[in-house]
């Protein structure tokens, strides 16, 4: 993975001192709260329900074991011994003291970690595919260009005060695993007539106005990506709305102008910058790409006999291999997903002890590196098949081997009402209740692949719109209710789910999910996943079952009764 040079490192150290100085000036009353807020946000520091919340960047999801150990230490020393991996490759701490943050940043800087632009109205951490570099379906490794984009976006002087936050996702595979259709800029790497480049998508986003992005340029040779993004950002910075925070994302500008008109403005702007100094040189690409070279894989031509035997002997191991490993482009290797979705724990949470176990596993079995996925799990990308059994045992002992990746209980969930000031409703207890209801592994495996995503409000941090089943916390007369959508999805055919009908009380949710699953099980053809059955039979059978015998206002009554 990318190793910081003297300059990269110096900038992070400069940032620590800058932030320390900002905190001092704020404490001395030289910066008002309003003046300090955007500055602390650009360092990932929110003030939330219980305490400040602090977001540490994991650029394009890559970490090494030393960095993870440092995160474990920071969580233990300055917080309550755990952290939360988010859907955008960041680690969030929920209880640090604001005045400790400069010291936390200084500790993080020792291992080249930082919180630069993890929040605020600026270019945020760039996300990508958790299997970048090892996926069997990869066309081009997106990480060198993600790193080049990271550097370009860091402290960009023209774009530090955008109308609203700005998120990039970049994908280099056949099957998009980076939700590129729902980012401010989504980039698809591809090769056309022997030339490597991008399809550039703009104006996607979830949140309260969920919109699928649109293609602003079908093909852009890779050398031009910085100047082209600069053109997009300049158009957005000048013309994006600033009168209303809910209408300030680039998606609203693209909708208002229409993508053709928007593209015209961008192309006109770009015409001035094309082939200028921002054009990426071959030398720079090669310099950065060299950091992402393949590790020293062994040549393995036969499948390990012990491994094969264990698969046959131990069903639990076989299940874990089935769900939690992913095809690798090198024979004899697999990518392993360590599940942060054990039943009964907030999705994405990880303790300091678990981080240390993962760091050890990475050192011993996966070249000392790991990745964070937007599904809030941890990936060991390069594990030998012959080591899988040991990795499984050690992961299991640490509570990291729930074999539920892609299954119903591998829920994406935001912090919700337990932590977040903006929440309409709690989300973690809903996730936990559903996990408890579907605790039987045979049943879970029988149901098969399904994405269940939960957000505590329409800001959609839990990606509910793109869950096959989406759950959204809504507020009805100060009570917490949940609206359910069906048929959303990520990937190449990404689309938004449809609302099934009136919302439900918290207590009803496990039943509602159970009924939806029953309709699927009754109707499915062999080998049909939930989403395929849904596409074939439509929303009505689900709707009918869920609302069977249920009069309007029933949720409210049920809630009263329970209270």
């Amino acid at each position: 993975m990318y190793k910081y040079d003297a300059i990269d490192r110096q900038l992070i150290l400069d940032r620590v001192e800058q932030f320390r100085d900002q905190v001092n000036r704020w404490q001395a009353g030289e910066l008002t709260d309003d003046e300090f807020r955007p500055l602390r946000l650009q360092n990932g520091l929110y003030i939330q329900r219980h305490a400040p919340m602090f977001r540490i960047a994991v650029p394009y999801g890559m970490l090494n074991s030393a960095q993870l150990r440092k995160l474990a230490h920071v969580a233990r020393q300055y917080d309550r011994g755990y952290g939360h991996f988010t859907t955008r490759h960041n680690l969030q701490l929920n209880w640090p003291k604001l005045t400790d943050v400069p010291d936390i940043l200084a500790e993080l800087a020792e291992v080249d970690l930082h919180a630069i632009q993890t929040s605020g109205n600026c270019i945020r951490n760039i996300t990508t595919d958790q299997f970048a570099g090892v996926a069997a379906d990869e066309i081009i490794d997106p990480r060198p260009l993600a790193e080049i984009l990271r550097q370009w976006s860091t402290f960009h002087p023209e774009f530090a005060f955008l109308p609203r936050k700005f998120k990039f996702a970049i994908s280099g595979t056949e099957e998009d695993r980076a939700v590129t259709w729902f980012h401010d800029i989504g980039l698809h790497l591809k090769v056309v007539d022997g030339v490597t480049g991008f399809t550039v998508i703009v104006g996607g986003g979830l949140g309260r106005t969920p919109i699928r992005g649109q293609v602003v340029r079908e093909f852009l040779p890779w050398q031009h990506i910085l100047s082209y993004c600069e053109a997009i950002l300049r158009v957005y910075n000048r013309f994006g709305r600033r009168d209303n925070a809910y209408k300030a994302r680039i998606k609203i500008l693209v909708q208002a102008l229409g993508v053709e008109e928007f593209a015209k403005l961008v192309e006109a702007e770009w015409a001035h910058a094309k082939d200028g100094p921002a054009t990426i040189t071959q030398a720079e690409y090669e310099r950065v790409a060299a950091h992402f070279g393949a590790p020293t894989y062994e040549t393995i031509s036969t499948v390990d006999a012990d491994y094969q035997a264990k698969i046959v002997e131990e069903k639990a191991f076989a299940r874990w291999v089935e769900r939690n490993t992913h095809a690798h482009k090198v024979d004899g290797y697999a990518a392993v997903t360590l599940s942060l979705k054990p039943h009964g724990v907030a999705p994405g949470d990880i303790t300091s002890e678990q981080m240390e176990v993962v760091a050890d596993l990475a050192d011993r079995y996966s070249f000392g590196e790991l990745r964070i996925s937007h599904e809030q799990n941890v990936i060991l990308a390069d594990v030998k098949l012959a080591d899988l059994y040991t990795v499984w045992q050690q992961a299991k002992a640490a509570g990291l081997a729930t074999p539920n990746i892609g299954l119903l209980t591998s829920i994406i969930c935001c912090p919700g009402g337990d932590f977040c000031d903006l929440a309409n409703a709690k989300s973690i207890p809903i996730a936990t209740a559903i996990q408890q209801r579907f605790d039987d592994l045979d049943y879970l495996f029988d149901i098969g692949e399904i994405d269940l995503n939960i957000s505590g409000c329409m800001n959609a941090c839990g990606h509910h719109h793109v869950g096959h089943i989406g759950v959204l916390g809504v507020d009805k007369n100060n009570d917490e209710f949940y609206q359910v959508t069906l048929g959303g999805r990520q990937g190449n055919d990404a689309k938004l789910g449809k609302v099934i009908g009136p919302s439900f009380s918290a207590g009803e949710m496990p039943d509602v999910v159970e009924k939806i699953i029953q309709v699927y099980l009754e109707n499915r053809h062999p080998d049909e996943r939930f989403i395929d059955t849904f596409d074939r039979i439509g929303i009505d059978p689900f709707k009918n079952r869920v609302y069977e015998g249920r009069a309007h206002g029933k949720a409210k009554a049920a809630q009263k009764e329970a209270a």
Partner: protein
Amino acid sequence: MAQLIKQGALAADTWTTLTLAEEARPESVALPAGDVIFPLAVWLARKNEIVSCHKRIGLLLQPDDKVEEIAADLEYFVVIAINFPKFVDGRGYSTAALLRQRYHYQGELRAVGDVLHDQLFFMKRVGFDSYALKDGKNAVYAIDQGFSPFSATYQGSTDQPEPHFRRRTA
């Protein structure tokens, strides 16, 4: 009064800025004598008049004013002031970048309005060379620290058009 920072020091401000009162119209407002910074609307409405009676002319741009409208007039201006009504409104950075990079404006480029310590580095990079620091803020400390929080820059901008990767030796 804002505190004008120029060339790394506090400087006296010799300019007055014409502000249009609520009922005043650009076409009819009285044009004061001396070194005056005119709002864009007044410049556009009264260009000939201003040019005939003022030697040194200043222009004030608001965040939603389009530089394209005065791109052909730049030779008239000794100073262009770009207003930041709130410091989180970042449109002025693009305005400044366009003036310097695309239209090659050579005169003084001044940041006015809600100009604070932590913006100075960004402002300098996109091409400002004078800064009306907000009243009540510590100008000495801003001059000492505000322009140089970072010892290097990755991306090109007005002050250094070449991105870092083109300046690497190794």
